[in-house]
């Protein structure tokens, strides 16, 4: 009896919400390419893991191709991979764009051939040639989260800080920094002073030396905010090596496994991130649903992405012509929870 009652309630609930997102059906073979900014970065490997999980759930008979350029050849390499995937006639390409608008001609060529182009992690700034962007978090919120962490670490007295970003053309980092600047206008953050923005190109050595250069240039700087997992780890190591952790703190977006020692020894007391495994998982579901024609890339389209639940495609508030799917939320890490997060 109870069973029937539950079924009845469920049916009623279904009837009451006619716009319920339908689950993505698996079983079709679709060739798909997952293209990170470049190979050899832990978070991209995690995204790959998540995408493989989704591929297994959707029983895609075609093996997922995880292809990426080398860091020093990122722009030309991404274009080459997108072009070759277009030649091969794959069903969908998932790009974490590191080439700014330089990827547009290649992405457009793919899109014109009927290939679904999904960006994740970092979108195409003009959205040209792109179907939809799977946003890890709300880009406006990222700025606020960074401003809040700066305030947490520097305390009510505030102080000077600087930003150590990835490459100057990384669309994601650039819009996070812009949204942080916006957030800083709030009187709440009046005592925070942004000295400079420098770029480590997501290369450890370059980021390390940029962090040291900031210390030399701004003797009163008390914090380096690095919205990139490579930059934050390199900056924390630089401050630890220079024995400056008491004077200059590090924060930003970091991977718990890479940051745990710096958080425990006080160099990087607080940082934030989202799950890259989930991001890879959701990107795969999105690209698969688009490529199999189950979902159209248009404002208001809904679908159900496995264990992560329902998502809606909406207009991207940070890019005029873009569409996005918002994942979220942020996880903040500090001494109390960072060790657990590495397990």
């Amino acid at each position, binding site marked *: 009896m109870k069973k029937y009652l539950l079924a009845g309630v469920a049916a009623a609930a279904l009837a009451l919400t006619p716009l319920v997102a339908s689950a993505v059906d698996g079983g079709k073979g679709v060739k798909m390419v997952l293209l990170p900014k*470049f*190979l*050899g970065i832990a978070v991209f490997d995690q995204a790959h893991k998540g995408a493989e999980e989704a591929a297994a759930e959707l029983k895609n008979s075609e093996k997922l*191709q995880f*292809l*990426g*350029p*080398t860091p*020093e*050849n990122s*722009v*030309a*390499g991404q*274009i*080459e*991979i997108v*072009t*070759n995937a277009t*030649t*091969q*006639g794959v069903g969908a390409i998932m790009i974490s764009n590191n*080439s*700014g*608008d*330089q990827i*547009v*001609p290649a992405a457009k060529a793919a899109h014109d051939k009927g290939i679904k182009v999904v960006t994740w992690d970092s979108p195409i700034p*003009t959205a040209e040639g792109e179907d939809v962007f799977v946003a890890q978090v709300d880009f406006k919120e990222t700025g606020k989260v960074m401003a809040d962490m700066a305030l947490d670490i520097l305390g009510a007295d505030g102080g000077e800080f600087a930003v150590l970003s990835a*490459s*100057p*053309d990384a669309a994601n980092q650039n819009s996070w920094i812009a949204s942080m600047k916006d957030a800083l206008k709030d009187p709440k953050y009046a005592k925070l002073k942004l000295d400079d923005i420098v*770029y480590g190109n997501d290369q450890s050595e370059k980021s390390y030396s940029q962090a040291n250069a900031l210390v030399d240039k701004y003797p009163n700087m008390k914090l380096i905010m690095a919205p990139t997992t490579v930059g934050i780890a390199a900056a924390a190591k630089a401050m630890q090596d220079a024995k400056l952790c008491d004077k200059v703190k590090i924060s930003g977006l970091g991977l718990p496994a890479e940051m745990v020692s710096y958080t425990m020894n006080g160099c990087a007391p607080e940082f934030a991130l989202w799950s890259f495994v989930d991001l890879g998982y959701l990107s795969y579901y999105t690209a698969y649903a688009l490529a199999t024609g189950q979902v159209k890339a248009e404002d208001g389209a809904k679908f159900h992405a496995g264990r992560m639940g329902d998502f809606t495609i909406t207009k991207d508030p940070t890019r005029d012509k873009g569409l996005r799917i918002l994942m979220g939320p942020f996880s903040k890490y500090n001494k109390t929870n960072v060790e657990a997060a590495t397990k």
Partner: protein
Amino acid sequence: MSALVSRLKSWEGLLFVLLVVIIGFCIDNSPVYLGVGNIVNLFQLEVEKIIVALTMTLLIINGEIDLSVASVMGLSACVVAWMFHHGVSMPVSVLVALASGAVAGMFNGFWVAYVGLPSLAVTLAGLIGYRGAARILVEDRSYGGYPQWFNAIGQHPQIGPLTVSIVVFVILFAVVAITLHWSGFGRLVYVIGNNMQAARFSGVRVKLVKMSLFTASGVVSALAGLLYAARLGAVRGDMAQGFELDVITMVLLGGVSIFGGSGNLAGVGLSILVILNLRNGMGLANITGNTQTSVIGALLIISVLAPNMVQTIRNKWKGRLT
């Protein structure tokens, strides 16, 4: 028959066999390899480098090297970006960018030809200096939004299935081939590369030849930079960074001696085909990133070692016989 055998024993013969093997692998591996679109892309994805490799061949045969080519490419792209975004018309910006390449090339040439400094040092300074100038112009921004005709040059087929960039390469290849192998100037390039002192004493105008070659290298690099900007549709300060090594790889694999005086354009042409087909084949086989780089690196190591080793072994045998 024996003529054919001796042909195949030469470096170009070896490259030709290698090319056949690679193309065989590509055809076997991917059904889309032979499509017109793919063959065009195969050239298009590296077209700027192979254009610069042509003038690099002349310089290396002449006993010099130009490490600044990629920085000149970046500089000319950034000059165009900066000028266009400061309201200068596109054709004028393009001419100024080409002129900037000529000036950069002449500057290199002056120090090498007239002052007598080693080109390795001079153009290394150029590599750093011209890149710096490019970065000052565009700072950390990305400049796009060029006129449609400019983007079309790099992105869309204009002449049959071919892009303007590929046609530029074909024309330049013919010009360089004629200059190097069928002109008096070409003979001077070899003579100087073989023995600069002897050439100087026989009244060859060494300075003028070197100056012309460096200037040509500058102009052609600037042109390649513009084609690259047109292909990507957006310019930033790190454009073409590191390309000089790929360009030099193509020339050396072509059998051009790094010490000057020997090598020919046919070898470089074959080496270009080998590298481009290898890259494309690996791309279509979903081999990317470090694996791809390592394979091409290994190819270069073998290309530098193999001829020397063969020579050493031959000499040893000769020593035994006499």
